[in-house]
């Protein structure tokens, strides 16, 4: 089967990209989704708070997803559910397995929108036994919210990522006792509003600079030993403490799922663990685009939508043979940033660029400056910038079209941890 644009993944990124691709002239567009319905991870996020930027109202995850699913259904976009992409090549051939058996596709452009996966207990090296009752927070969320099963009654949550915080509240509302949220960093890795609405409002303690040192229980979790850590994350002697519980939820980070991207020889940035992209969200393989959590982990779905529209629109332009940028400059993160996206900007493209970054530390009243050499192209003031909240700044083409050197993005301001 031949398509102008194939979108791999039917979560928020894939939905927005497919709609935008279709609307921009990729007449034959399809979405390949491995799960049994569209919507991706939003389907299990039944709490509200989605859509504040996009729709200026607070929606639940499924509601937010449905706004886009409706738009997909209105258009003539093919949707393959229960279909797993087994292989893709840089020539944009796709092999998938699904209800119709093995399928071979060929596309003019591809949008990679496969999302991310959760880091596991093994990956972070939690010691002790390996009983039942240790769940990644997202898996527990799916079991509770979509399948209707309770995973435990007395809970410790390791990691203060947003899913962990949301699950602290969710488990409490289901009648479980959440005894603590344990975070190894000196600050939370979740959104500030989630700390307030999910922990403080339910008197759930957040133990910063603590780690789970050991899991107890041979068949089912019986408890965990926690310990305080110093600023190098080494355990401080004499601080071990036992908490009895039957469940340990892990919310210790998300990793873009790029195994498929690598089959297409898309190169990855070790900082984001996602593809290197230009300002059109095009990877280093022409005609292959990447957006959403497979590109870098987001905390707000509205930002995923915004980024994915760029990918979808440009995938359509590529399919039509209208994406022919020649003049690029590189973009580098300053010392105070963990990463910046895109890694390259097309100067000869009227669409400009959407700069995204995360800070290393907390900054109060900082100014973000976008430089080329010593010249400031754009600056923006913030009340606070924290590592857990990604920043997006649009950069108009007028500002950059005449520059020659590379671009650097950094924060000016005092660290405040």
């Amino acid at each position, binding site marked *: 089967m031949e398509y102008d644009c194939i979108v791999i993944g039917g979560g928020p990124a894939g939905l927005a990209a497919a709609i935008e691709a279709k609307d921009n002239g990729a007449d034959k567009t399809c979405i390949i989704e*491995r799960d049994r319905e569209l919507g991706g991870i939003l389907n299990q996020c039944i709490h509200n708070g989605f859509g504040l930027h996009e729709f200026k109202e607070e929606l639940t995850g499924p509601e937010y997803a449905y706004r886009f699913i409706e738009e997909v259904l209105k258009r003539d976009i093919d949707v393959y559910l*229960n279909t*797993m992409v*087994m292989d893709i090549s840089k020539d944009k051939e796709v092999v998938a*397995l*699904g*209800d*119709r*058996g*093995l399928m071979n596709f060929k596309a003019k452009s591809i949008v990679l929108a496969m999302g991310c*996966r*959760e880091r*596991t*207990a*093994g*990956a972070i*090296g*939690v*010691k*002790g*036994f*390996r*009983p*039942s009752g240790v*769940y*990644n927070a*997202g*898996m527990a969320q*799916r*079991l*509770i919210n*979509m*399948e*209707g*099963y*309770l*995973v*435990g*009654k007395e809970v410790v949550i390791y990691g203060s990522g947003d899913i962990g915080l949301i699950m602290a509240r969710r488990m409490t509302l*289901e*009648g479980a006792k959440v005894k603590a949220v344990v975070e190894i960093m000196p600050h939370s890795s979740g959104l500030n509003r989630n700390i307030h609405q999910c922990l403080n409002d339910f008197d759930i303690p957040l133990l910063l600079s603590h780690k789970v*040192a*050991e899991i107890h229980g*041979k*068949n*089912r979790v019986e408890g965990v030993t926690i310990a305080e850590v110093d600023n190098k994350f080494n*355990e401080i002697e004499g601080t071990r403490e036992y908490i009895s519980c*039957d469940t340990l939820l892990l919310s210790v980070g998300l990793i873009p799922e790029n*195994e498929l991207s690598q089959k297409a020889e898309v190169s990855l940035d070790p900082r984001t663990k996602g593809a290197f992209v230009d300002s059109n969200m095009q990877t280093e393989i022409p005609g292959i685009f990447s957006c959403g959590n497979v590109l870098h982990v987001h905390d707000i779905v509205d930002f995923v939508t915004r980024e994915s529209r760029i990918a979808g629109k440009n995938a359509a332009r590529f399919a039509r043979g209208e994406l022919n940028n020649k003049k690029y400059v590189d973009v580098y993160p300053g010392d105070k940033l963990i990463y910046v996206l895109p890694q390259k900007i097309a100067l000869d493209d009227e669409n400009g660029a959407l700069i995204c970054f995360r800070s290393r530390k907390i900054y109060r009243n900082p100014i973000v400056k976008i430089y080329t050499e010593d010249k400031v192209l754009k600056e923006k003031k913030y009340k606070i910038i924290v590592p857990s909240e990604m920043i997006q700044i649009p950069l108009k083409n007028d500002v950059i079209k005449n520059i020659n050197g590379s671009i650097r993005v950094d924060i000016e301001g005092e660290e405040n941890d």
Partner: protein
Amino acid sequence: MYDCLIIGAGVVGAATARELSKYDLKIAVLEKGTEVCQGTSKSNSAIVHGGYDATHGSLKAKLNVRGEKLFETLSKELNIPFDKCGSLVLAFNEEDEKKLQELYENGLKNGVEGLKIIDKDEILMMEPHVSKEVTKALYCSEAGIVCPFNATFAFIENAMDNGVELFLDEKVIEIEKNDDAILVRTEKGSEFQTKILINSAGLYSDEIASLAGDTEFTVKPRRGEYRILDKKVSDIVKHVIFTTPTKAGKGILVSPTVHGNIIVGPTSDPVEDKEDTRTTDSGISKVDEVARKLVPELALNETIRLFSGLRASISQGDFLIYESKNIKGMINLGGIDSPGLASSPAIAEEVRDFVSRHLDLVEKKNFIKERKAIPHFNDLSDVEKEEILKKNPNYKRIICRCEMITEGEIIEAIHRNAGARTVDGIKRRVRPGSGRCQGGFCGPRILEILSRELGIPVEEVLKEGQGSNIVIGRTKGVL
């Protein structure tokens, strides 16, 4: 009345069942766990050792060398994942080199083929990522890697294809001899009568022996801790890379697995409790320290799982295979620690010889020699894929996206002889949950499939042992 009753369905019990199933005998296997392969057999280095390091003249030396040869044949007959990738013992100084020479000579005496001491250049040609500090190595072309789970499953499955019965959740608590039979009672109250009783209870073999009044050995478990690394870093080594061994054991190794991961470990620390399979800070640091010495660039940060297993070590240091002093017709298999996996088919032959001294062994006419593994969809050719899809639509649905496992494979793992009963049982047979997401995505689907195929509520699906239920009830149902 059974002719032979085997206590313990680890790799040794299973290999024994398969060996004895060649003969016209009524055989049963009793296993205390919820599934076969739940003790030492499920957590070890997954190596078929060459046999050069077991002291010449010991039972370990004899059975390791014989077992390795048998594995070659058995892996073909029973479709067991086995790769004779060869091993290297690395030396870093003169003292190590002296030890290598001893190993080499000991190996020759043991009858190990394919041994060679090689120098630095050759080592680095074979394994460019091992430490440049290496001076010499002992290469053994006969050593290999195996899937210990699927070896055990293949043995028991084929044994059952040949009429062997398996009883799970049966913990033996009493052994008695009357005039013409051995009587075995279990905690659940079942009673079995047999002519021959085989004690292959691994970590618990001393306790089973003592039920018969045999007190010749005591199992002092030694714990080994490991890391499993992501497949994406599997190019780092192609052979089993050992440190020079010490008295405590073969030492820590870095090795590919038959599934394409890297395994690093084990430690060797005595523990009191036969279920104490904890991982510890000190154990894993020890593993890391040696692993970095062997392969400095090893990406330990690409770990997907830490685990540990216990070896059924005894003070005698050698396998202790002998007829019970108190109960004629009972054989104890004591001290089956490393190289127990490699030796398992040879131990089975020892047991067969023992049985032949008590019973007349008549070969079965219709013995089914071969067994086919569950096909892994993703490894099939395009033609084979189309064929299997036509026959069975369950192969259309990918359940485990990390390892690309289809629903068809999982359903087959449940419905085969000695099939999977638990989430871990599925994982060990066909690997969903063994990948980098560790079951984060496929976990809920596996629960659903197990519940549907076994006809039990989701709440009763176990991770592994009794009490290891994954979910505890319906939401709102517990309020």
